[in-house]
């Protein structure tokens, strides 16, 4: 149904740490693997072994270069992006069929593929590029927040988390209830100044991004000078110091 629930019981989502993501694409492929085999139609690939090859993915890792003011070195930031499970999800309200909906119990935004006509409008409405129309099946695909894992009783408790989170080697992805102030993810967001992408679009994303920590700020030499104060200027003097110091050991 295209109307959004006034309130969801939980706000399940991801917190992505831009300070830690090394851009390895592990989350991308594990997402592809899980979601090809599970929820809905497989994520297909076109011209799989030829030119102009492309396919459906629910999670993609971009990278950006940031040039600080002045002569500081440029930085590179790896930037994973999947559906942010927005509270005011425009992709839901534009859907003419009701295929797109936001779940009341946990806020997950899903596509009911059997109702989807593949009009693409939801993808047009999403500012983040989080939806891709599968070219083989003709239906809209998007991150399900691994709804078929996080509650799955066939999985051991510890595995009831999104495939991308489970696989991330650097531990840059966190999953939890962002509606609960006391959850680990909420605390992380508070601690690290978690941010929204394109806040001006008014989508109120549930997923948050932890900004990179300040870079290239090695304590200045002066502060540390005592650490490199020469013990002697001459090699001879050095050996004298050595002898003295060894005595004390």
């Amino acid at each position, binding site marked *: 149904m295209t109307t959004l629930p006034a309130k969801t019981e939980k706000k399940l989502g991801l917190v992505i740490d831009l300070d830690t993501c090394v851009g390895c694409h592990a989350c991308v492929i594990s997402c592809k693997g899980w979601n090809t*085999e*599970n929820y809905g139609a497989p994520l297909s690939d076109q011209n799989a072994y030829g030119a102009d090859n492309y396919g459906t993915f629910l999670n993609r890792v971009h990278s950006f270069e940031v040039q600080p003011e002045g002569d500081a070195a440029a930085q590179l930031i790896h930037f994973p992006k999947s559906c942010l499970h927005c509270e005011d999800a425009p992709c839901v309200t534009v859907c003419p069929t009701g295929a797109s909906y936001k779940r009341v119990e946990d806020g997950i935004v899903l596509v009911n593929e059997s109702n989807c006509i593949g009009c693409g409008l939801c993808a047009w409405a999403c500012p983040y590029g989080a939806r891709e129309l599968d070219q083989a099946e003709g239906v809209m695909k998007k991150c399900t927040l691994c709804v078929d894992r996080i509650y799955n009783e066939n999985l051991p408790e510890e595995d009831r988390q999104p495939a991308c989170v489970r696989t991330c*080697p650097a531990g840059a992805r966190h999953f939890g209830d962002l509606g609960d102030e006391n959850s680990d993810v909420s605390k992380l967001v508070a601690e690290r100044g978690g941010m929204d992408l394109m806040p001006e679009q008014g989508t109120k994303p549930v997923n948050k991004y932890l900004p990179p920590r300040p870079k290239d700020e090695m304590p200045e030499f002066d502060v540390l000078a005592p650490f490199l104060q020469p013990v002697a200027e001459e090699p001879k003097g050095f050996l004298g110091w050595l002898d003295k110091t060894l005595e004390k*050991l």
Partner: protein
Amino acid sequence: MNQPVIDLSPKVSDEVRKTTCYMCACRCGINVHMKDGKVAYIEGNKDHPVNQGVLCAKGSAGIMQVNAPSRLRKPLKRVGERGSGEFEEIEWDEALQIAADWLEPVRAENPEKLAFFTGRDQSQSFTSFWAQNFGTPNYAAHGGFCSVNMAAAGIYTMGGAFWEFGQPDWDHTKLFMLFGVAEDHDSNPIKMGLGKIKKRGARVIGVNPIRTGYNAVADDWVGITPGTDGLFILAMIHCLMKAGKIDLHYLAQYTNAPVLVINNPGQADHGLLMRDENGKELVIDRATGKLTPFDKPGVKPDLAATYEKDGQTHRPVFHQMAEMYLDDQYAPEAVADRCGIPAKRIRAIAAELARVAFEESFTLDHTWTDFRGEKHEKMVGRPVSFHSMRGISAHANGFQTCRALHVLQILLGTVEVPGGFRFKPPYPKPATAHPKPHVGLTPGAPLNGPHLGFTHGPEDLALKDDGTPARIDKAFTWENPMSSHGLMHMVISNAYAGDPYKIDVLFMYMANMSWNSSMNTRGVIDMLTDKDENGEYVIPKIIYSDAYSSEMVAYSDLILPDTTYLERHDCISLLDRPICEADAAADAIRWPVIEPDRDVKGFQSMLCELGAKMNLPGFVNDDGSQKYADYGDYIVNHERRPGIGPLAGFRGENGDQAGRGAVNPNQLDRYIENGGFFVEHIPAGSNYYKPWNMEYQDWAVNIGLYDKPTPYLFSLYVEPMRKFQLAAEGHGDRQPPDHLRERIKDTMSPLPIWYSSEEDNHADQYPITALTQRPMAMYHSWGSQNAWLRQLHGHNPLYLPTKLMRENNLSDGDWAKVTSPHGEITVPVLEMAALNENTVWTWNAIGKRKGAWALEEDAPEATRGFLLNHLIHELLPPKGDGLRWANSDPITGQAAWFDLKVRIEKAAAPDESQPGFASIKSPVGTGPKDLAWKVGN
């Protein structure tokens, strides 16, 4: 609201089979989810010591690999010209017969005419065993062109190395410094470790001309000029020594810093370490002032004292270090320009190392006893750790640079201590405990010992009686005396040149030598296809085993198609490159979680069969019957020494013994039940200070890592290097050829030095360094056959720093001609700001030959992708002395991939990246157009 009802608990799979990943050499544990007997989904195994559940992109894409259309299907016999790709499918019987017919006469007459080289082999202890029993001296895997500098420098210096053989103490380290690493073999553990220390807020410093991946998340990025790390490190050593910010206790107790160096100028022992009659290094005991063996209980080795005898003053190693490194040539100001790092910054980093090592030092409450019998109540931690890989080792000064880094670690007292860098079993293990190279051959009989090892002086070189190289790759010769891993990159060119001799059969396994793993790809292709005056190929017979339709297939005469990693037994053994952790010994297996649907055989199983067919000792029973039915049988039943076999786990009849124990016929089942691996933890308190910790030493003996405790001193001063120098100075009866004397004297300093190879590579005309990096989501050439991965990296632009873009009037998407002293390529460029301003780079091994890998001919990998290898030569440009010098480290023979110097100019966009190559005929056709992969429903 009436939401759709969805199944929140769908069945995940019918069964989970736990085995080991093979999409790279990291060897993570995987859970293979099966549906209807097919692979449905692959995830990481949470219990596995290597990856603890996480999995990289390649690992998760394994399903596309085992089902790749490029898989070879049946043995192939070449019917067209080499390189054409014209093959005929044959039966295995015929294939093995051909191989035996080629190999048997070689073995009977002159086994050295077989060169057997095995690429990134994970079964080296087995393949070398096979080669040894065949009797050829010509065996090695790929280490020589990969990162032997790192391995050899580590083992000679501290009895263990980076690669995946050691790791930072991720739980305690507070400052982690990474030199020249894009991905490394320990891929997932490094990422997990970075995640851990980031979580704790510890600092990461990345030293790399390129700021991507690990270096992008580093708190500080040092965009160093390639090839100058040694200088940068020695400058930090200069600062730290000058300030006395070194761990004197550690240096005195655990290293050869206090060992006396013989001062006897002009004599054959000048510069060797002073030893007693038992060969023990001598120190001055600070307590007694007397000359004392280093390991005498109670000895307090003195770093300062000198020893006078016969009018000569013999000084400890540490004196020489002080003299050498306190010199102003290593002052930050003296090296800053060369390294491209401001002096101030060098000092700041050195100061930070000092601060963290000494001010943030901490202790762990573990009592332990050292090899001198001294009991320690606590373990002192120095939370500074380092890691490094090919960025510093794949240069011609790489060995010395790696050595310099280890010396820095040791000066800070941060190896094998809490918070520092730690070895993984079977390390620590000093160079002297490793075998030496063996080349003693007898027609029709096994070689006299293992092929590879560590040389400790001219007497260990692999030379024939006439002084010529015994090995086809010229490993362990005066050209590269300490080439512990062999020199795979020289095999084809040496065999082609007949220098040192001609061979008859080249037998290779998983090495794409006609493409991305060679320097000078075009040249190698020509060598493989060139014929002599009789119309015979110069390299007469080539046997090759690959699992996929790689570029190399077309250049072979007989193809023995391998299984994929989910279809065979494998053994990740303590005898080889195991999966240990700093806190545990561990090994693992692969087992056939699916059966092959093609007529292929596991390579190792095939070798069991071929070995038996040729009656190789070790492969036949006394009655001449085949000894090992297949590799699985070998893994279980082979014993290297009594009670020690390929697998350490579940030994003994009841499977309850670890390390040592009788053969357990159910061993593989026990591994499978256990998730495909075996772990034996090092008892707490034995897991630091391992080289000197007697509890550890005893534990290691117990599980069979050594036969007796083997404590040792770290070698700041590497005596064997001095021995080679002495020979070059004219001492001893094994003498280097004259043209090599100066180089040996200059480069084989027993204390780390730095030298430049810029001039050799004509940096005056080619001022820009061109590098490659491993993409995290691709493994060399294999990734391109993977429908998922090739979408991430389907072609590879050349990244140029902003300055070079401007200078050459280039913008994104333009093309540039890149010229080296050896060749030229024309490729698309993109701008990158976070890049050393005189460096360009691209992702490694994305470019593909048309017709390979079951890709369509217009695949972007072939039309826009490219290799830098066309610009790199295995030899340096001529120097005008009439000789051609190898483009490798003069000590180890490590291929100097990253010494590549180029110049760049804008070019008109060609139709395809240049050089273009004719298409090769695919022996397996091309893949399907579209995929929608779902196994269940």
